[in-house]
């Protein structure tokens, strides 16, 4: 197996941007309510793109890396896309909670405070904190998606046991002819 590092960033960027966009759009983003569908799916697609672009067989470790990277990129895109929809999302969430209250449900403690102070959620501090939390969670979920992607799209390579790393450094005189020789 080749020890060369595959090009993770491009497939992660492509799939992460799409997954983040889908996660950030109102209603469409509800897909994430089904086991983080867009993030897991995006990470699996990133693996598919990586498999296509890489000649060497990939291992599950490659899937975890590209998946985690996809999750982080998706979190950034998601956070940016959600900015213009912030007031709409808050209004929708308030409606859902009002309906739940009508049906006898209870609101999470202090959630009303979040809606009342909606403008504070747009402050840079809250934005960065939310982004950090999302990126951490999406990275783990994305890594899982990447591993699922490896099992689906590069199954044989993932199942193959990796060769042990070389332990001895061959002396210079056993090397083939080189320009310096």
């Amino acid at each position: 197996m080749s020890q060369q590092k595959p090009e993770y960033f491009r497939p992660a960027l492509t799939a992460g941007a799409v997954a983040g966009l889908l996660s950030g759009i109102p209603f469409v983003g509800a897909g994430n309510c089904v086991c983080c569908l867009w993030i897991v799916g995006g990470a699996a697609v990133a693996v598919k793109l990586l498999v296509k672009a890489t000649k060497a067989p990939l291992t599950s470790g490659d899937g975890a890396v590209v998946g985690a990277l996809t999750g982080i990129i998706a979190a950034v895109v998601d956070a940016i896309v959600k900015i213009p929809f912030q007031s709409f999302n808050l209004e929708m969430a308030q409606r859902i909670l009002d309906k739940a209250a009508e049906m006898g449900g209870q609101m999470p403690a202090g959630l009303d405070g979040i809606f009342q102070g909606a403008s504070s959620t747009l402050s840079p501090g809250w934005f960065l904190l939310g982004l950090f939390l999302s990126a951490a969670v999406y990275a783990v979920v994305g890594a899982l998606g990447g591993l699922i992607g490896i099992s689906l799209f590069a199954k044989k390579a993932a199942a193959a046991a990796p060769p042990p790393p070389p332990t001895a450094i061959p002396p210079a005189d056993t090397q083939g002819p080189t320009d310096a020789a």
Partner: protein
Amino acid sequence: MSDDAGRRRVRAVWLAATLGAAVWLALIVLAPWLAARSSTGLARAVYAVFSPVCHQIPGRCFFLFGHPLAVCGRCLGIYAGFAAGLVFYPLVRGFRRSGLPSARSFVIATLPMAVDGLAGLAGLWRSPVGLRAVTGLVWGALLPFYFVPGVADFFDLRERRRAAGDLERAAGKNVE
């Protein structure tokens, strides 16, 4: 890498994942407990931690201490299933390095939740919270069998590439 080192690595990943899952589940329960104790600020912070990954609609959550858990029933099922899968992982796989689950296992574990979730999103039916939790539990129980060997392989891969890089550099020096 020797088998022993491989086992140690898988065991370390398993242990870290188990601790992480336990903390994650504890946080889910902590939110309603804090809310019940009128620690509104802390409760709000814990609910906020879970908001990027769950809609937290109260009608779809289990309640504890008179308040909804920090995640919906389906998410709770997934996380509880993940924790349960981790508990059973050493009994099923041991700590040896192993491959990922088959595509068939993935489809079988995903199908109940996918059908329930997508039908719910399409408005075809509204399943009770208990059923959502059970379908999530089935799916979540499979995830450690991806996560543990996958993350262990990531660390193996990093080590192998570092060793290969060192070898290339050393070979280059020898040639010079």
